[in-house]
């Protein structure tokens, strides 16, 4: 988190305002309090506080108590705080460790919640890397949904249509998924490079084209599972499935290894490689990069190919790991969740892994919370969007918590307008 993504020069205010003569915060606590990391933490805390209010509103006992709020307000607060406590305890139990299931002494009882968190985090990390990489090159890859679908279609097709020896089958299916995603992302990259079409517009449209194409495929013989009653594909053969990491009783699968490898690879690519330097330069200032002799067009195409391949890999993890059949909602909202992951992770590999784990934990915990306390899982979506909203508007967080200092929001490097 220490690395600041947004270039201060990209924020108009940073250049327009003369530097303010504020005293720098003194002491280690003061410095920590004023740091960007603290803003991230406080964004999380603020979002959880608002989420807590929503939990209290949703609690039937609190609702009943609120009818006599003016006679005896304490009941409302007591039940409300109880509901929030129970909700967040259930969230924790679903995501990290659940003493009740652990008491059974089975592997699934101990590691089930963590496994759910990791399973949920796997595609989020991959998608987040995709969006984050594009961010660094100044592109906004909003087309994760379409790329995940394209990846899942290709990986799934290889997985259930070809008969190959184990091992080889899996590798080919993974490669096919990456290629599928890369092609889908590459279309947007080529259009941007050759015609200047804004990638946000083209990727949104490509999402819907992929969705309808998938809907079509799920009604085609050879793709759809007999007896053709439901819109699901044939199941992927065992030889093409990602192996389970901790045995069959918990869901976490080798897709997680792929995601972590991808994170290491992308981290190296961005920070250590020549290509990464070129991409960051283009992202920081495309005009200067052009003057320096870099091909901005090639960079756009390259970055969208890699970003697409990463989302394709998220699709691979969905179809070869978490599920074994393609359905109409195989993308499971990963494309849009990935954007929030990349923003929270400030578009660097370590941050994205951390953010992916956090949101994976929220998703896993949300499911448990819904079944244990009846709080709808949509709450997770609200918390997630609030976190990112606060991260993107750090001055708001600083104003709420009375922190001095300035910081720029994420996404400052992105081209701002449709024409840019």
């Amino acid at each position, binding site marked *: 988190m220490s690395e600041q993504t947004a270039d201060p020069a*990209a*924020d*108009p*205010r940073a*250049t*327009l305002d003369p530097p303010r003569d504020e005293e720098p915060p003194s002491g280690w606590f003061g410095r920590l309090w004023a740091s960007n990391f603290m803003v991230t933490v406080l964004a999380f805390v603020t979002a959880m506080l608002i989420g807590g209010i*929503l939990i209290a*509103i*949703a609690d039937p006992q609190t609702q009943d108590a609120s009818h006599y709020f003016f006679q005896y307000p304490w009941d409302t607060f007591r039940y409300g705080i109880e509901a929030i406590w129970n909700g967040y305890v259930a969230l924790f139990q679903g995501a990290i460790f659940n003493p009740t299931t652990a008491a059974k002494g089975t592997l699934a009882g101990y590691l089930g919640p963590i496994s759910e968190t990791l399973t949920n985090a796997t595609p989020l990390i991959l998608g987040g890397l995709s969006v984050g990489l594009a961010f660094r090159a100044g592109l*906004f890859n*909003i087309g994760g949904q379409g790329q995940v679908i394209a990846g899942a279609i290709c990986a799934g097709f290889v997985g259930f249509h070809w008969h190959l020896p184990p091992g080889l089958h899996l590798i080919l299916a993974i490669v096919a998924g990456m290629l599928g995603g890369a092609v889908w992302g590459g279309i947007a990259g080529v*259009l941007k490079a*050759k*015609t*200047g*079409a*804004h990638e*946000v*517009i*083209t990727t*949104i*449209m*490509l999402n*819907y*084209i992929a969705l*309808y*194409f998938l*809907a*079509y495929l799920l*009604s085609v013989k050879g793709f759809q599972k007999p007896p053709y009653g439901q819109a699901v594909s044939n199941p992927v053969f065992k030889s093409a499935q990602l192996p389970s990491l901790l045995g069959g009783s918990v869901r976490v699968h080798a897709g997680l290894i792929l995601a972590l490898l991808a994170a290491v690879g992308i981290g190296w690519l961005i920070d250590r490689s020549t290509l990464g330097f070129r991409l960051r330069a283009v992202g920081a200032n495309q005009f200067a990069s052009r003057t320096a002799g870099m091909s901005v067009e090639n960079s756009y195409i390259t970055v969208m190919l890699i970003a697409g391949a990463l989302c394709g890999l998220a699709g691979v993890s969905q179809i070869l790991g978490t599920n074994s059949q393609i359905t109409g909602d195989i993308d499971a909202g990963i494309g*849009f969740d990935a*954007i*929030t992951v990349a*923003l929270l992770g400030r578009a660097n590999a370590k941050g994205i892994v951390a953010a992916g784990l956090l949101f994976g934990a929220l998703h896993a915990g949300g499911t448990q919370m819904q079944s244990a306390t009846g709080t*709808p899982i*949509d*709450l*997770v*979506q*609200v918390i*997630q*969007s*609030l976190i*990112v*909203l606060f991260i*993107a*508007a750090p*001055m*708001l967080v600083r104003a709420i918590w009375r922190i001095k200092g300035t910081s720029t*929001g*994420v*996404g*400052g490097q*992105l081209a*701002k*307008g*449709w*024409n*840019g």
Partner: protein
Amino acid sequence: MTAVAQSPEELTVEHVVTRAPVSRAQRLGAGISLIVLGLVTIWRFAINGHHDQDATLRFGALNAENVPVLHLPAVPVAWVAGILTVLLGVVWLVAPRRRWFGPFMGAGIFLSVVALICWLASASSFAFVDVVGLLSSTIALAVPLILGALCGVMCERSAVINVAIEGQMLAGAWTAALFGSLMGITAGVLAGALAGALLGSMLAVFAIRYLVNQVVLGVVLNVFAAGLTGFFYDVFMQPHTDTLNSTPLMEPHKIPLLGDIPVIGPLFFDTYSIVYLTYVLIVVVDVWLFRTRWGLRTRAVGEHPKAADTVGIRVLAMRYRNVIIGGAIAGIGGSYFIFQVGQFQKNITSGQGFIALAALIFGRWSPRGAVAASLLFGFASAMQVVLSINAPAIPSAFVAMVPYVATILAVAGLVGKVRAPAADGEPYVKE
């Protein structure tokens, strides 16, 4: 680029008075598209058409009286339409003129669609196509798109990108369902507009005050609206469906005299009040943008905020107002979904906000263009329904893709070039 980067040299205006050139991409893209369209028409509807039966087109429902009925020989119609479309493409390739672009593409698409409808109507499986029915479902499907796209016009003409149309519609829909159930349709529509405006003001504050990247912001607000409406649906509406989530349905109101005109009457003047409100809003937004002082200022703020600020226009205030009003319009669009079916469901807008965004872009950020694009996309959806019932051989999913492919072609400059307001998406900070 930020406002500060514009040095005086860059602000120099060059006066170039020549005929607007047609780019190579547009020349080839549009020409080849037309030729392919014509050839597909000839191949599918003429050569492989239904030779044994004439097409029967009814301009009214089966139970209506005094309905004009047209009998056309489908195969010759398809031949003529296909050949004319190919000719249009060839003429465009040889001598393109930018002014002719719209009429050429329009004529080509129109001819192919006529051939398609005649082909459908001549299929032995069903006896006729009700043209008025098809067009009225086009309008019914286009109304929310029009309202969403008008919201986009309001926001983006004053340089605030609005990707959150979907979220504003969803917020409007939820609130309209709640207040519609409690107090009736009028209150519901008003509440929907308010909720849309509320989400619009969130967009405005974060974009204008906190300078958040507007595309990021739009995406996040969509997630926020989907999460919040889903949450409150589960908490309040699900357990009390009878009282909190069952609204009255819209009833069509026939306008006297106008409603009695054949074909046009039932199509435009025998419909729901939200649709009449949409007519009014279309005219208001168009007149407002191009004929009023406010509109002129809005366009100035959208194209060159610094210049606008220099002559004393309050740039940020303009943007706040326009974005909030735009949100209200999108909220009305959201409430339309509710009063069609009478209740809220999670994610009831199902991506219509994004089609509205596509319509805005395809319509080149102008109210009239946005309306035309919405109608075109609405027609594609209406055709999709007709085709999936009557011609399962044509996969309806590909018809559903039409709006999205068309928008990609448009932004890529393959069929005409679209250009956003110059300052769209750039925050303005006073020096």
